[in-house]
């Protein structure tokens, strides 16, 4: 009976479609955030003096309430998917950039010296030594970003981005408990699964690259 009710709600609210929208926004935002975050992390590693102001700035952005950030983006980017994805990226930059930078910087000097002794250039040391050793840290940052992105994509439903936040909002506005519970639990399960997968990847990388 419960399963019947859930599938009725599912059909009616078109949750398959909403889930695809949701995961689409999530993936686009995460891919861009990872590319940008890792790049900025590497740039900050090259120019150490920029690191502190840049990380402080990102830290300050991070204290902004996510809803307020979405609202600030409306006059600039309108409503819908675009401001939602931009907000996800802004929020995810700090954990990814900070972890990339910290991972690259906090490597034991002996390992770098060994690389130099083997005749590696500075660029090769970054690519073949620093980045692999930083991978577990970077993965940790991406895992935090996954949780943030999932949260903000869900909020996007409020500013017309679709995804699973939209049926949640409908449920609250029209007070439809079955819709709220089905969608809410489904979003929760999706988020926990994604976080769990990221956790497994992080652990594998730590086992592989963490014992230096």
């Amino acid at each position, binding site marked *: 009976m419960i399963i019947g009710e859930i599938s009725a709600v599912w059909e009616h609210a078109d949750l398959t479609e909403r889930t695809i929208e949701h995961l689409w926004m999530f993936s686009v935002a995460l891919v861009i955030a990872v590319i940008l975050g890792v790049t900025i992390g590497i740039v900050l590693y090259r120019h150490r003096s920029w690191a502190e102001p840049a990380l402080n700035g990102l830290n*300050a952005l991070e*204290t*902004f*309430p*996510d*809803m*307020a950030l979405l*609202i*600030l983006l*409306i*006059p600039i980017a309108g409503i819908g998917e675009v401001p939602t994805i931009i907000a996800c990226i802004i929020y995810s930059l700090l954990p990814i950039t900070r972890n990339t930078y910290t991972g690259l910087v906090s490597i034991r000097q002996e390992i770098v010296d060994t690389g130099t002794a083997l005749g590696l250039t500075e660029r090769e040391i970054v690519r073949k030594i620093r980045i692999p050793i930083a991978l577990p840290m970077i993965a940790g940052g991406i895992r935090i970003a996954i*949780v943030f992105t*999932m*949260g903000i*994509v*869900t*909020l996007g*439903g*409020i*500013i017309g981005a679709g995804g699973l*936040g939209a049926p*949640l*909002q409908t*449920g*609250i506005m029209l*007070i439809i*408990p079955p819709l*709220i*519970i089905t*969608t*809410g*639990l489904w*979003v*929760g399960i999706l*988020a*926990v699964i*994604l*976080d769990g997968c990221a956790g497994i990847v992080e652990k594998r990388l730590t086992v592989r690259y963490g014992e230096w």
Partner: protein
Amino acid sequence: MVAPEVVIAATLQQVVLVYASLAVSIAVGIPLAVAALSSRTLERTIITFANLVQAIPTFAVVAIVVPLIGIGFWPAIFAIMLRALLPIVKNTWIGLSSVDPAAIDAAAGLGLTHWQTTRYIRFPHAYPAMFAGIKFAAILANSVAILTAIIGSGGLGTLVFEGLAGINVTTMLAGALPAIGIAIMLDVSFTRLEHRLTTGEQGRQTSTTPS
């Protein structure tokens, strides 16, 4: 145009929401962290559960509260608390459990009971981590408190949602900008408080050390 007194009233409501939920979270979170010290199973259950809840999107937490306990101020406080609890529990627990075992042994050797050890050895050691957790929770509470306006908590989110419904950017910003102001104030004031309390604690410790 939004009347200034409306914005001020909403800001005050927002501050009340943040501090009320923060107080409840601290009152629930610190005992949970202390309880986690007493048994391995309890520790695992509390930390696993807290981590799981953390991964769930805020909007889903706020929404699920509605069919469970309804709408209004208290359901909102409950939703915010669910969010703010994890950083407090986790940081306090990390602080309490990362004490040097030698210090615990020394305390036992001096004849301190379990509670005395927790109170005089573990807690002073845990303060910096604990305050970092509370600061993070306060900022999180401010962010969730905007969203809970959708379930009738009042606060700055009311203006945000009013603006969204009427497609009125001024009203939206009248809600969003003070919320950002509160976030920055919370960050600065808690950082200062943290600084003062932790350095004060260290000062007291050194002053009681016989020379």
